[in-house]
């Protein structure tokens, strides 16, 4: 409220200064209409502001003056000398009061009634009194012309460019450390200055919200409704210009909400709601956008009635409308020439529809989202970019040209050759299927008539969302992500309807900002008409060529890929469950112990991202830093020089990515916990339990299932027995491996020394293989 008061004081003071000339002129010719209007506007504004600033004295004075002036304007009363004097005395008093408020001194109010009485027709002329000058309080804020700020901004970008040029020049030759340091400092200061200068253009959104309580009260009262308003997030900062642009749409939306949304008290009672309607206006910053939400608990949007109204007006075919998806039906609210209420009221029925609201918000690069709960209320979210002047943009290239696209509009960027992307031509139009979404495609090159370059990696597709829907923008390259100072372009440029502004990036070469909605329009994309059929269907996905793989960032910071087929899932586990046991890292997961692979250090206090790799039988856990994307591996893989965790290197989007060698990982780490079709090793004649205690762990580690007795129906793959020829081993249709106690074998003896680990394992394997399988 203090800010508001300050603003009111500054504004009134300013107007008074500007008005002083008018007042003198009006004195000399009281019937001059334009002077009269100027003074009327002034007292009218003061009266309006006093209402919600709670300044009753000023309000009374200005109200009285306004009444008299209104009479003079309508011709009911001739502005004679007495009246002029009386009005001027009030204007003077307003000025004095404002100064008094500012300096915090009090002003005797005894004269007020006299001044007001003097306004009456035939009253005595007021004597011009001179109140001793009141000390003007020193103001802590200054009012600046926006033009001055703009000049500051452009001076700032001049400075940035000069710095870049200087840095470039200096780096061409040997650079002294002292110079380098000075340049560094300059860069830092320039960067900070740029931030500060940008901030000067920002204003708290409170400037937009402060007038709402009064407006809501008046509007609701005029309609015989009662509405309680709740405002949240008034501290959020927004570009000053944008606040001005937002003012009318916001007022319109709120009036709509009160007029059309919130029901009358009787209806609300009937619907089981509190008589008081609730209206919540909130603002918050999310990333580089500001979201302003207006939520009411009224009846919401009656989609049925929208359709009826539109079809009745003959604008649209009812059958077409019914075929739309729910979301699109809701968006019909933005159709031009639609008033969702049957009768026109003086509050919102002024021929200004939601279409105007939407277009003015889109003009500043924003969009409107609706969340409708029929019978319960409507939530309307306005997304606007944080500042009009500086936006985060993605630079795309087509042919030899570069363009900026607002980052906010881009949902994602995929390569044309990516997995789950297919491009079809349907009746002359190109359509992209990205995963289960089908989107219209705009080829930027052909839209702009710029010859494309043939690139090896294929086109990039930027999925762009505009408030009607999304489309894929096909470009040659995606170059950069930059903060750009966007300025309006000349009419010659804007008339193309394709550009939203121009910018001068650090390269010193001007660049155009593409207007995403404008491009959709120029390409004749009509989301409302065909969308219902095109989008909501989910089509069976085409099997992509190439091996899909999970791209992840490994613990050692290297980007690696692993074939998707062996990734069972990615999950988060507590680092506490990882222990170095039995010679390697293991992790306890779901009551089991899995070998764990970690190619780097991990933070033991945090939760770990773990890939669970499965080759069908065994499972290995692999700690990663984070999973990044699902990609399709190109066919060309450059093999690694030596066997190890890396099978080879592939090129993904021009970047080298190591391909994890699943074969090596499983070979190295897996094996001791397999299940299912493991070969069964029968330990025959293990009377002394040596084999169970000594050999069994070894065998299990090698992937055998070790039993001492066969269950019915089970068949041993191999039988292991002690020194002696054992009866039990006979009659089993399984190869036999005998172990001997002595290190040296007698001639003709095919038994294995029982501590020859390698020999034993290879003998088992050989016998099984010789026997034709497991």
């Amino acid at each position: 409220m203090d800010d508001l008061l300050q603003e009111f004081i500054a504004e009134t003071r300013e107007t008074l200064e500007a008005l002083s000339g008018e007042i003198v002129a009006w004195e000399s010719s009281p019937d001059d209409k334009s002077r009269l209007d100027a003074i009327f506007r002034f007292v009218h504004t003061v009266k309006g502001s006093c209402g919600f600033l709670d300044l009753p004295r000023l309000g009374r004075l200005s109200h009285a003056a306004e009444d008299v002036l209104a009479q003079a304007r309508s011709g009911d009363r001739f502005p004679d000398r007495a009246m002029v004097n009386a009005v001027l005395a009030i204007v003077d008093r307003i000025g004095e009061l404002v100064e008094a408020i500012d300096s915090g001194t009090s002003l005797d109010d005894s004269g007020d009634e006299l001044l007001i009485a003097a306004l009456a027709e035939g009253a005595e002329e007021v004597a011009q009194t001179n109140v001793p000058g009141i000390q003007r309080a020193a103001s802590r804020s200054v009012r600046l012309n926006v033009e001055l700020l703009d000049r500051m901004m452009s001076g700032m970008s001049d400075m940035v460019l000069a710095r870049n040029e200087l840095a470039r020049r200096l780096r061409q030759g040997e650079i002294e450390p002292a110079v380098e340091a000075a340049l560094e400092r300059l860069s830092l200061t320039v960067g900070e200055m740029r931030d500060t200068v940008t901030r000067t253009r920002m204003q708290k959104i409170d400037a937009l919200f402060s007038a709402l309580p009064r407006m809501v009260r008046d509007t609701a009262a005029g309609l015989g409704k009662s509405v309680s308003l709740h405002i949240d997030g008034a501290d959020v900062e927004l570009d000053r210009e944008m606040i001005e642009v937002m003012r009318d749409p916001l007022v319109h939306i709120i009036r709509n909400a009160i007029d059309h949304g919130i029901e009358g008290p009787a209806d609300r009672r009937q619907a089981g709601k509190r008589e008081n309607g609730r209206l919540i206006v909130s603002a918050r910053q999310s990333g580089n956008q500001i979201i302003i939400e207006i939520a009411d608990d009224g009846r919401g949007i009656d989609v049925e009635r929208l359709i009826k109204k539109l079809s009745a007006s003959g604008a649209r075919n009812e059958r077409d409308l019914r075929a739309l998806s729910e979301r699109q039906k809701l968006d019909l609210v933005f159709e031009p020439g639609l008033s969702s209420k049957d009768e026109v009221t003086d509050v919102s029925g002024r021929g200004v529809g939601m279409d105007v609201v939407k277009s003015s918000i889109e003009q500043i690069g924003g969009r409107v989202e609706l969340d409708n709960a029929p019978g319960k209320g409507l939530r309307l979210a306005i997304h606007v970019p944080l500042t009009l002047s500086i936006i985060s943009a993605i630079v795309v290239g087509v042919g030899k040209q570069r363009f900026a696209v607002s980052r906010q509009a881009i949902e994602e960027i995929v390569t044309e050759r990516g997995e789950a992307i297919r491009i079809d031509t349907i009746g002359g139009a190109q359509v992209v299927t990205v995963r289960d979404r089908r989107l219209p495609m705009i080829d930027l090159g052909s839209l702009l008539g710029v010859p494309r370059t043939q690139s090896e990696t294929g086109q990039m597709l930027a999925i762009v969302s505009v408030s009607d829907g999304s489309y894929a923008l096909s470009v040659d390259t995606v170059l950069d992500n930059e903060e750009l100072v966007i300025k309006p372009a000349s009419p010659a440029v804007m008339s193309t309807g394709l550009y939203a502004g121009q910018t001068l990036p650090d390269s010193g070469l001007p660049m155009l900002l593409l207007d995403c909605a404008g491009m959709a329009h120029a390409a004749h994309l009509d989301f409302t008409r065909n969308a219902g059929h095109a989008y909501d269907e989910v089509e069976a996905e085409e099997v992509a060529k190439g091996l899909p793989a999970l791209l992840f960032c490994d613990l050692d910071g290297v980007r690696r890929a692993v074939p998707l087929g062996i990734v069972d899932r990615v999950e988060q586990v507590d680092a506490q469950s990882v222990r170095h046991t039995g010679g390697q890292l293991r992790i306890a997961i779901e009551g089991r112990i899995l070998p764990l692979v970690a190619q780097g250090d991990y933070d033991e206090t945090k939760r770990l991202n773990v890939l669970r790799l499965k080759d069908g039988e065994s499972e290995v856990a692999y700690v990663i830093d984070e999973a990044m994307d699902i990609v399709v591996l190109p066919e060309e893989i450059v093999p690694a020089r030596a066997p190890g965790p890396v099978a080879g290197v592939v090129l993904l989007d021009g970047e080298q990515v190591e391909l994890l060698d699943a074969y090596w990982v499983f070979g190295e780490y897996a094996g001791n916990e397999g299940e299912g079709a493991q070969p069964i090793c029968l330990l025959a004649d293990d009377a002394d339990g040596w084999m169970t205690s000594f050999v069994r762990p070894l065998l299990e580690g090698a992937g055998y299932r070790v039993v001492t007795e066969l269950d019915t129906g089970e068949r041993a793959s191999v039988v292991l027995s002690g020194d002696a020829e054992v009866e039990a081993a006979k009659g089993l249709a399984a190869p036999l491996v005998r172990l001997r106690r002595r290190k040296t074998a007698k001639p003709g003896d095919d038994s294995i020394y029982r501590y020859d680990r390698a020999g034993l394992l290879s003998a088992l394997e050989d016998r099984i293989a010789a026997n034709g399988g497991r």
Partner: protein
Amino acid sequence: MAHLYLIAQIAGRAVAIDSNQVESVVDIGEVTAIPRAAEHVRGLAALRSRVVTVVDTQSALGLESSGEARRAVITHIDGHHYALLVDALEDVAPFDLLPLAGGFALDSAWRNAGRGIVERDGEPILAIDLASLVPGHAVAAE
């Protein structure tokens, strides 16, 4: 009353430009093309931190574009800066603006741009209004 005029060459013809309309005269560097813009909008160029819209004056006058002109007259119209390409600059001198006498059959584009005549050593030179050559303003300028 004599007024300062800039005498420039456009399409081999001398024209006079009111010096009030001229902010500066520069040589244009690299130009960023504006796809889909009007034909005589050459593109955007940077003048220090300012971005100007470069207009091919010759084709704006309905003539073949030479495409070689680098020198430009910078003018400021409705808050935007434009660079109008000219072949050469000859002179800056005060002249008296004489009305376009009837009977001159100027080409349509020249007629739109023409504001009068100045006389240099007996040679009549057409005085043109730069704003009329800038697309988007051409209509507004009468």
